[in-house]
Structures are given as C-alpha cells and as structure tokens.
C-alpha cells in the first residue's frame, strides 16, 4: 500500500499493520464492530498529524480519529476500508494559566487525568461525562460530551475557548484562542464541537477552567414515582442550582448494591450535590433536603470523601455495571440517550416506560435529571435478530418521544453510525431537512474527498 510505504519513514514503529495489533481498533465502547483497519497510526505531534493527513489526502485513504475509544454510537470505528489514527500518544497538558482561567491540552489527555492535574491548583474542567476515566479531551470535544455536572455547568461546548485543527488535506488551522470573548464572524470553534471527527483532527485545545467548589455534600433521595422525583427537582431548581442532579431507576440501583442501598418501595432515586464554601454548603444541603423530604420516601446525605466517591463512581460506572444483571451470557448493553426540556422529563419518562413494556424490552432508565437527559441501558442479544429488532424499535420510540416533547434524539453521545436514521427523523419531524443539507454542505467544504470518518453522522 503506497500510503503506508510513504508514512512509515515518518512515524516508524508507530505505524501498526500486524493483524493481531489491529483487532482492538475495530471496537469502541458501542456495540458496533467496525472494519479491520489497514493500519493504525499513532502520531506524537501536530506535525505527525499533518503528515498523515497530507499523505492520506494524496491517496484518498479514509481516516478515523480515535481518542479514548469511549464512543457509544460507533463514531470512532471504521465504516469503510481505511486507517485509524489513535491520539493517545498526544497526551500532554501544555499550559495552565490561572489568571486567564485556561488550560491548554493535547487531544489524548484523559479527562480524569486533567481533573487530577487541575485539582492541585483548586480548579476543575467542568464537563464530566460518566466515561471521564477513559474519555479524552479530543474525543469529548468531538461528541460535545455532557455529563453529571451539566445541570450547573452545561456541556463541553460551553468550556472550549479555541482549537488547533488539522484539516483533511493536512493544513493546520486555528479556531479561537485563549480569550473568553471573541466576535470574529462565524464561530469555527463551535462548528468543530460535536463534529465527531468528520471536519478535522483536533491537535490542541484551549479549555476554560473554573475554581473548584470548596466543599461538596452528596445527597441521595428515594421516591415511589418519577413524578415525585420530578416535582422535587423542579422545586429545588427554583431556589438552588445543584452541582449535580442525577436520577436512577430501580434496575440501575440493583446494579450497584454495594454503593447504594435503597428503602422498600423505591422506584427512582435522585443523586444531588450541593456545593459551596465551608460555611454555605451545610445550609444548601439542608435546604435541598427540606424540599426532598416533601416528596421522598427517604433522604440521606454525606460529606465523607470516601463515601461520596463510592456513590459517584457507582453512578459513573452504570453503563458497564448493569451488565452484571444480564439474564444470559451473550447479552450486551445498548445505551439510549435522548434529551427533553427539563420540565418535560417526568412525562417523557413515563411514556418511555410504557414503550419499554410494549416493545418487550428490559432496560434500566437513568440520566441527568437536571438537564433533561434520559439514558436507557438496554439488554440486547446482538446475535438474535428478533431481539435487535425490538431494541431498534425501542430506540426509535424513545427518539420520537423526545422530539414530540420538544427534545432531541441525541443529548451527549453524538450520532455516530447508530443514530444516523434518528437524526433524519428528528429533522423530518421538525420540518428542518434544510439544516441537514447545510451540514452536508459544510462537510463537503471541509473534506471534499470525504476521507475523515467517512460514513459517520450521515452517508
């Protein structure tokens, strides 16, 4: 392959072509298996990335960029023949400026590593997807990742100040910079966020950071109905914005019995964080608990670091831990991800519960109640076509429930290959097909040969 012959002298041992070494790159965290790459490339610098793209462009070789491989929609696997470019070697934190409230990082930095680094300076980078242990800066920007702190801090797009990007032909461009404000025509930084590796390769990110809350109190509340939980969170948000506001159904709770024990009668639980200074956190915690007690069977809270971490990690690991509850070997997890306006969440969730039962699906429901984001961990036998038909039907039902409630078919996982059809359905439902055409036009301008993540988002 001419492409490989030309790239090998530049990347040396970081050009991988042995079959056994290519196998792991056929997967990400979704249930899809991609094509086996013709090669895996591990660049160590922006210059390496430019060289790879320049040569790939010359030979029309499709390239899929991969970060931590935590995509849940198949956006980091190959859909056609081509190569995978893994960004994990580019994992350096390049600069921190507390005055500018900006950290500069390479794309392969894992979010938890960034968190540990910033913690030393009493700061943090708020986007906090549940996959933060594995997810990288580049990957989370590419999917506009959200997370547990979304209720208070929004999602990735709210925290990216600027990007350095290598385009499909190897040209290096800079979108944005370290400044908090910028009015410079089209917001090219925003265009890159959520583009899932289809427009360019992120090689450097300027990220906004924030002082860490002095103290956190973690509160658990258990409810008979989602209505009770919905009313509680609505009343809380009238007065206080919690640092985190999560909900979990009973199946979700059953998958983490060591971390969270629930009282009899529980069907839903809320997990909330109150934050503030040493002086204010206690008062906020009490204010939240007072409201919760009006609706909940039981509430409990802790400020013990070990206990708080146990609960937090249990919530973050739900996608994987739910598999402990599978009824037979071979069952896998397909995860749904929709968003509705916060006020619509309880009614949307009830419709989802009905659809789940009607579709004959076993699924745990959980998510970010504070920002209207609902996840479904669906048990699926990938080898059983009937089972997968039911799963796909349920995914479509969830999607249509979300758009009917004024929401969207993807909250924070992106489109990938999983939601291409759902994306079209949402656009069609909203009589908004022109937007899809505009997106395709943008793709053509950025990547005329369609070599970047070909087949992702749309065909």
């Amino acid at each position, binding site marked *: 392959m001419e492409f490989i012959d030309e790239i090998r002298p530049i990347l040396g*041992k*970081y050009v*991988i072509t042995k*079959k*056994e*070494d290519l*196998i*792991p*790159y*056929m*997967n*990400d*965290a979704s249930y899809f298996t991609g094509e086996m790459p013709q090669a*895996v490339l*591990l660049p160590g610098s922006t210059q390496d990335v430019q060289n790879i793209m320049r040569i790939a462009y010359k030979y029309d070789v499709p390239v899929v960029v991969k970060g*931590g*491989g*935590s995509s849940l929609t198949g956006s980091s696997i190959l859909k056609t023949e081509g190569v995978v470019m*893994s960004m*994990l*070697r580019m994992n350096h934190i390049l600069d921190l400026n507390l005055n500018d409230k900006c950290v500069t990082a390479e794309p*392969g930095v*894992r979010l*938890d*590593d960034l968190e540990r680094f910033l913690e030393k300076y009493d700061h943090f980078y708020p986007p906090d997807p549940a*996959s933060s*242990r*594995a997810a990288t800066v580049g990957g989370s920007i590419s999917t506009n990742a959200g997370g547990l702190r979304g209720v208070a801090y929004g999602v990735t797009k709210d925290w990216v100040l600027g990007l350095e990007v290598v385009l499909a032909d190897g040209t290096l461009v800079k979108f944005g910079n370290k400044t908090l404000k910028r009015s410079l025509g089209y917001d090219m930084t925003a265009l890159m966020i959520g583009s899932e590796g289809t427009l360019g390769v992120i090689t450097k990110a300027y990220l906004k950071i924030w002082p860490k809350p002095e103290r956190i109190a973690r509160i658990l509340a258990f409810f008979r109905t989602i209505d009770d939980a919905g009313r509680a969170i609505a009343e809380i948000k009238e007065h206080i914005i919690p640092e985190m506001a999560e909900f979990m159904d009973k199946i979700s709770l059953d998958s983490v019995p060591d971390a969270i024990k629930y009282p009899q009668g529980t069907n839903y639980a809320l997990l909330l964080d109150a934050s503030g200074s040493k002086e204010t956190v206690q008062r906020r915690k009490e204010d939240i608990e007072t409201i919760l007690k009006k609706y909940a069977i039981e509430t409990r809270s802790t400020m013990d670091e070990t206990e708080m971490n146990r609960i937090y*990690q*249990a919530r*973050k*690991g*739900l*996608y*994987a*831990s739910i*598999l*402990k509850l599978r009824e037979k*070997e*071979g069952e*896998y*997890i397909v995860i749904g991800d929709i968003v509705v306006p916060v006020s619509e969440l309880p009614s949307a969730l009830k419709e989802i519960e009905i659809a789940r039962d009607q579709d004959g699906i076993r699924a745990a429901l959980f998510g970010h109640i504070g920002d209207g984001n609902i996840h479904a961990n669906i048990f699926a036998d990938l080898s059983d076509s009937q089972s997968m038909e039911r799963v796909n039907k349920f995914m479509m039902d969830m999607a249509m429930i979300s758009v009917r409630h004024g929401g969207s078919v993807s909250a924070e996982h992106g489109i990938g290959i999983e939601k291409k059809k759902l994306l079209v359905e949402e656009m069609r439902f909203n009589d908004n097909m022109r937007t899809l055409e505009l997106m395709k036009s943008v793709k053509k301008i950025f990547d005329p040969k369609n070599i970047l993540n070909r087949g992702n988002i749309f065909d």
Partner: protein
Amino acid sequence: MTKLQDLIAEAGKCVNCGFCESVCPTLPAAGFLSTKGARGRVDIAKFFYKDDSIDPSASFYSCVDCYACLTVCPAGVNAGKVSEIGRMILAKQGKAPEIAKMIVELTMRYKNPLGVREKCAQWARGIEFDAPETLLYTGNMYQLMAYLRKFGKLRKFFGQYEVQLASFIRKHPSSVSIFRDLYDKAMMDKMNGYLINIVKLLKQNGIKFGYLGSEEPYPGTFIYDLGFEDEFRDYARYVSELFRSKGVKRIITVDPHTYELLKYIYPRYTEFNFEVVYYMDLIGTHKISGKYAVHTPCHFSRYFDFSEYVGRMFDVNVEENPTRCCGGPDELLFPEISENISEKRFNELSKTGLPIVTACPICYANLAKDDSVTDISSILLADGERVSSASVH
C-alpha cells in the same frame, strides 16, 4: 468448563468502556499500542475465541498481572485474569514464547530457572538454623534478582537472536551452566544482606526455624505465570512432597510472590497442608520513625490490604499510583515495557524526595535506580535496633 470457555466467560462480561485501559501500566509503556493494554487484551480474547488462527501471545504475555484493571472495572471484569487464562491456553497449544518454554524446562529440570540453587544458598553460610518443622523459605527469589539483571543485559547483547539462544539452551539444557557466574555482584550482596536482615528480625522475635540450603527449590512462580498449568501441577506436587519429607509444618515466606503462590495457588493444584505465613506477620510491628515513600507490591494488594501494614508502621507520603506495578513481571519477555513502567514508578516515588521502601525482591530490583531505594527489612531492622537501644538507656 474448558479454558476457552473460562476465557470467554470473563471477557464476555466486558462492554468495552475502556476504564481498565486508563490504569493499565503496560499501555503507555508499550507506546499506547492497544493490544498491550487491558482493554485490548479483552478484545483480543473475544476475537481469539472465534478465530484461533491469530497469535495473541504478545498481548497476553505482556500483561504484568497487577490487576489494576479490576480495581476500576464497574462490571468486575478482570483483564489480568483474561491474560492469565489466555497464556494457559497458548502454553497448552505449544504457542508460548521460546524463552518462556526455556525457563519452564530449566525450572522443571533444576528446580531453579537458571540451575543455580547452590549459589542461591550461599547467603546462609555461617548462620545456624534449627526447628525444621518451621521453614524459612526464600524460594531463591531475592537471590535470583542478581541473575535476572545480568540475564537482561545478555538478552540485549543477543538482540534478535535471543530466540535462537533459547532454542539452543532448550536442546542443550546443561549449557545453562554458563549462567552460574553470570550475576550482578553488587545486587547479590544487597539481596543476601536483606535475607540476613530477615533472619535477624525473626530471631530477635524469638522465632525458631530451619532452612533447606541448596536443597531449597524455586517456588515455580514463572511456571505458573507463564501459563504452564500442567507443568506447574507437577512442580507443586514435587515441592509439596519435599516439604512433607522434611517434616515441615509451617512455612515462613519472605516475598509477596511466593506467599501468594503457596497460600492461594498451590492448594488449587496439589495437597498442600502447610501453614503459610509472611515474615512480617511474625515480627510484631511498631511505628517507624521517619518518613518514607512505600511502594506496595501488587501481589500483596490482591489478597489483603498491605497498606494496613504500611499504615501501622509508616508515615506514608506518596501519591499512590493505583497500578502499583514495578514493571518486574515483564522483565523476562518484554524488557522495554518493563523498563518504561519501572522508570515511571520510580519517578513517581522519587519526586516525593523521601527514601523509597520496597517489600518485594522483584520490586526492589526494578526500582533500585539509585541508593534511595531499600528493602523494608533494612528499615525494620534499623528501627528495631534503635528502639531496643533506646529502651536499654
């Protein structure tokens, strides 16, 4: 269940979230090549289950068995276990690396990986032993580190011809005698000194024990770790029978690998009715004066909380790396990965500015990159002498 079924039962619990990969020490040490990281090993296992024409040996054999992956997996998947089962399958199929086969065959023949049992017993010359029913069992582990360091240099010298070297030794096992004097003298002196420390500590605490001298066999750690289960079963039977014939009732181990193997692995493969203890269980502990950066051996973390020992004795001030791996298990087959891991761990410990303490000969050999590193026995002995001298005055 067959081993292949065991493999898929463990790997099949995985949803590929990648949490394991973020703490796997071999992934960054191998240049972020996924096959040599925890998640990649699980992916390979799933693929291997369907297509055994692939060669997954580099993936499975490069795992250091630290089980860091298990500590972060929300689904309780043990990628280390996946590698362990994978190695057993490969060894049974005759697909283990040539050097692994050489080491196993030499151990089976000489009861020591390099046929140097006499040399390994020299540290005890002049020491009086008694009470053979309680056995001080070094398993040659401390002593062999001096050989492994030289062996590593020899491998570098042979470079790409190391497989041929291993094949030659397999065909001519007596040629292993070339290793007898190929050891790092300074390392041997250190290691012998640590064993003498342990003897002194035990004697100070009134413990009576015997020692098998040049009859002492290696415990078979490599045989098990390299996946040679059938051979390990035979070897464990031999060792067990030897102990029985010597009237042994209780075995005092001095390193985490031997402790784990005898206490938890041997009973799965042979009748092994001996009480197995770790020497620190017998010597009593008190708060050690001074501050140290204590490196926890991963083989201790698996079965009990070594930090409990550490917490009782040391004012520890180390930002603990969850992997706790020194890189040692990869030294034989993947020296470059091993070196990268040990370098990283040494730097983590070193930046505390404190003296570094290890409690395992393999950890010591891999982390002793300068004089700041010492075996825990030295600290315990020195502090014991300080306390006893203080009480006299």
